[in-house]
């Protein structure tokens, strides 16, 4: 023990240190080869022994999309909202990204318990992999959305472009924060996976995806309820996405109702979400030490 200290500096393997990777999200980034394999595994396993396979990732959102457009747009009658399907599609990208990441991410650590119990890998790997799997499915949908926008004349301005980038950054960081925290808490209490499902059902109605923000604004006139509504990063992301994909396709883009200072709000929300990621990482690291024994 005594000579350990003196030899530390020149030792080729570096100093004695606590085993296991405790660098959190940075550790995940450093081991991106493993991360890539886990993502590929997840994609492979999700639709095993199914004829349609990966196509399910597109059939399911398509059916959801069509039912919103048909039922809400035509039956209930929001069809006078110009380009209503674009309004729904742009919002659905954000909402689905969040709820799919949240649901899969929350279960991710528990689902990989055999690995967590026996091998030393950065455990943040699992919720991050869930997020990437969702992202993988989203890319083709974004391409479809962009083609659809171009087809009807997409007058994308700089504000719209920034709004679009902000919406994606917000939903990625917010989904990461919530699924990091929930995946760790779910190890202690499996209630969290039900909690996550409840949230993802609620989020559909508490964001202006199916209905326009206009309807909220005309009832709240900027009071505290509206502020509370807009404090939800997913709602903020949905509005920003619509500023990017929906309103620039309208015959009069200025007719669309958005909250004031949209971009400034977006930046503030993004910073808040990044702080949440940091907080979630701290929580994860604290709980992580007990993961293996909680799942014996």
């Amino acid at each position, binding site marked *: 023990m005594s000579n350990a200290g003196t030899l530390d500096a020149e030792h080729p393997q570096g100093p004695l240190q606590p085993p296991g990777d405790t660098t959190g999200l940075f550790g995940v980034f450093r081991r991106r080869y493993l991360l890539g394999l886990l993502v590929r595994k997840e994609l492979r396993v999700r639709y095993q022994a199914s004829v349609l396979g990966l196509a399910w990732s597109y059939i399911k959102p398509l059916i959801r999309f069509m039912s919103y457009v048909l039922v809400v747009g035509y039956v209930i009658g929001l069809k006078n909202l110009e380009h209503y399907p674009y309004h729904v599609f742009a919002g659905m990208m954000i909402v689905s990204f969040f709820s799919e990441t949240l649901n899969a991410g929350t279960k991710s650590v528990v689902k990989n318990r055999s690995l967590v119990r*026996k091998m030393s890998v950065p455990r943040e790997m699992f919720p991050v992999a869930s997020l990437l799997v969702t992202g993988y499915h989203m890319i083709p949908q974004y391409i479809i959305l962009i083609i659809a926008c171009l087809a009807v004349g997409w007058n994308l301005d700089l504000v719209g472009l920034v709004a679009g980038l902000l919406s994606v950054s917000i939903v990625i960081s917010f989904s990461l924060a919530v699924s990091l925290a929930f995946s760790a808490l779910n190890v202690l209490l499996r209630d969290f996976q039900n909690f996550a499902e409840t949230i993802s059902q609620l989020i559909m109605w508490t964001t202006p995806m199916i209905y326009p923000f206009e309807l909220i604004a005309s009832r709240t006139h900027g009071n505290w309820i509206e502020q509370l509504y807009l404090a939800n990063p997913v709602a903020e992301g949905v509005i920003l996405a619509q500023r990017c994909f929906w309103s620039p396709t309208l015959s009069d883009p200025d007719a669309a109702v958005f909250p004031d200072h949209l971009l400034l709000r977006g930046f503030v929300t993004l910073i808040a979400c990044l702080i949440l990621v940091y907080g979630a990482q701290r929580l994860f690291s604290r709980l992580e030490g007990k993961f293996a024994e909680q799942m014996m």
Partner: protein
Amino acid sequence: MATSILLDQVSKRFVLRDALTLKRRLVAVARRQPVTHSFLAINDVSVTVEEGESIGLMGLNGSGKSTLLKLISGVLRPDGGRVLTRGRTAGLIEVSAGFHKTLTGRENIYLNGAIMGMSEAEINRKFDEIVDFSGIEGFLDQPVGSYSSGMFARLGFSVSVAADSEIFIIDEVLAVGDPPFKKKCIKRIQQIREEGRTIFFVSHNTTQVQRICSRAIVLESGKLGFDGPVRDAIHYLHYDDEGDDLDAEGGEL
């Protein structure tokens, strides 16, 4: 020689939560029963291992051997004391840990290799060696779910011995596999020892421990019972009293 593993007054407490649901918790509180109870799986263990030493970790079932290995590999964190290691740790806590049943043998080699900290290039380089050692060539593109338990174990062992590491840990994995494969494993472990890597080896098999290890540690209900030469450890455990059947077990190697 520098220190490879330092265990300094290490303790690990396991907390068992008897009443998890709100209902049972309320009942327990109302009856003034404890909601949780805990025990020390590792109790004040201090061990210093020098580089290149091969340590046999012995003790009865439930004495804390696997817990100690998991503390060294970083899967568990100590509640008291310090665990420090130098360099990478690889090895086998359980053969099937990193395997996914629906993936093929080939895919599992890559996945498991990456879990052990190998890079893609490193796995590519060692791929043939891994397949060769495991002897599963013909089944490489079959899902490992269809493998026999022996094939499973062989593949797991082959990947873990291929990983470069300064510390190599083995937890009773040699209990599976047929005698020829066991012989091959022992040979490989001896090779790892000759490479100057530190070995932590858990086994009840006194012959195996004597062959591989230069020093033995005996755990007794989480406490350090003995630390010294292998022969004395076996004597300490009284494993040498009941001679015949143990000799027979060792004899098959």
